[in-house]
């Protein structure tokens, strides 16, 4: 492993283990599993629908992630700034890009663990019926990509404040706007006065419309590009903000 990747990995490793050093990891995993299954079975009427698929499970993910991803990512930079460790970190021989990527990857892999732990529900649906496992697999990948976009956004916004609660709130609100952008109600309200290109741009920025396509098993290049570029863009802003805000 070259030095560049090695240092990114050391940052990643410290950060990922950091989740498990406190009760945060277990609380988060518990809440995620309880909410995702609760929503699937009760709100999503998993049994009443009588269909062997996981659409009732994945349909809630954008809303669940709206709250849970800011909860995971809020500490990424806000805590470094509050405790002063940012000064320690940024006087080590390491670049801002390595720091931002290492931290982001740790939070992203942590959500992957959460998603993997939800797999009993996949096994259940296979036991009960004969689902299209390709769609489910694609939905899992899509869900993880969407979580990445939420996390990159949260990581970026958490550099703006030393207060984790504020980081959580601004990340949730920003995430909400990005989810709602694809909502029919919002789009029709915009369509009444805005030119088509603007309506389309807003729709194309929506987490919801991209994720809905994935849920239907359509995982095309534009969707992949959307989430990946969303992650890259937010992390790029994140790198710039770390440089600007580090000494505030």
């Amino acid at each position: 492993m070259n030095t560049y990747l090695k240092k990114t990995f050391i940052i990643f490793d410290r950060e990922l283990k950091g989740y498990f050093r406190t009760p945060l990891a277990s609380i988060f995993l518990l809440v995620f599993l309880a909410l995702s299954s609760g929503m699937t079975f009760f709100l999503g009427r998993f049994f009443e629908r009588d269909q062997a698929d996981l659409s009732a499970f994945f349909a809630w993910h954008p809303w669940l992630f709206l709250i849970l991803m800011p909860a995971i990512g809020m500490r990424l930079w806000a805590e470094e700034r509050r405790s002063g460790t940012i000064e320690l970190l940024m006087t080590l021989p390491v670049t801002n890009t390595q720091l931002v990527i290492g931290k982001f990857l740790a939070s992203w892999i942590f959500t992957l663990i959460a998603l993997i732990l939800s797999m009993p529900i996949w096994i259940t649906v296979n036991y009960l019926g004969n689902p299209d496992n390709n769609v489910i697999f694609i939905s899992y990948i899509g869900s993880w990509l969407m979580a990445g976009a939420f996390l990159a956004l949260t990581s970026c916004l958490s550099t703006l404040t030393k207060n984790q609660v504020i980081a959580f709130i601004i990340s949730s609100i920003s995430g909400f706007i990005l989810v709602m952008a694809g909502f029919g109600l919002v789009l029709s309200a915009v369509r009444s006065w805005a030119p088509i290109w603007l309506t389309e741009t807003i729709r194309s920025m929506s987490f919801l419309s991209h994720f809905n396509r994935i849920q239907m098993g359509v995982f095309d290049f534009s969707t992949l590009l959307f989430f990946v570029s969303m992650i890259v863009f937010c992390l790029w802003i994140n790198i710039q903000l770390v440089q600007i805000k580090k000494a505030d």
Partner: protein
Amino acid sequence: MSLKLINAKNLTKSFDDFIAVDNIDLDVSRGEVVGFLGPNGAGKSTTMKMLTGFLEPDSGSIEICNVDIKKDPLQAKGFIGYLPEGAPTYSDMEVCDFLSFVGKMRGLDNKKLLSSRLSDMADQINLKEVWNRPIETLSKGFKRRVGIAQALIHDPDILILDEPTDGLDPNQKHEMRSLIKNISKNKAIVISTHILEEVEAVCSRAIIIADGKLLANEKPENLGNKFLQTDAVSIKISDKIEKKLINEIKSSLKYKIVNIEPNKKNHYEILIEDKKENLNLNKIMTELKKYKLNIYEASFLKNSLDDVFRKITQQK
């Protein structure tokens, strides 16, 4: 490589309208311990943050071991061990994990080398008893030691310590100073402090800054000579002196300041201040002889670094 491990020229840094550091030059050679003194908000920490590459100066240049920190920040940062103000650490980590993390980030890739440096730190900084404890459970003194250990883990050429003894008890302070002295032979060390006795105890050079400007850059023992024009003589008398006699003595002694005040019950002290060259103890004693005072002690008062510091930072 030149002897100057730190070579900073014309450093200036402003925050909005506030000039935190104003055109400061600083060089530190191997073997030197430079004490950075100044009132709160003088620009000490800002200067240190620039030297360590945390902040970029608005103008000026910094060379660390002949490497321009602006051109190659990663290489320059590699030469430095830094204890930021307040000794921030990842409080949820155990001491050994934290030091191992910093060590790896500092390029101690080799497991054998890393573990030997870790055990050096445990011995040298006395961290053995808390080695596997989370940092958040440690006392302030131990937290500070962990901060020092992370700065030393890679055995850097340059050590920059922002208030290293802040919050330590007198024994710990003494230990820390001994440690700094011991490791200073082959390193360039910069420490900032409020404690002036610390400068006298460990520093080979003292730099005083206030309002971002460099006011003094001298050996601690030379500061008094250079910045205080007056010296003082104290004469202690075991009798009570009548007011009339006090006035008489005062008017007969032709010095800049002559004060006669009771210091203990029925004991008086004559304090004479003037330029050094005007003060001659024998001459003063002869002048006082005619008053037949019971003098039990006569001494020159050495100017403390406190006096120098107050004088320099107040006259700016």
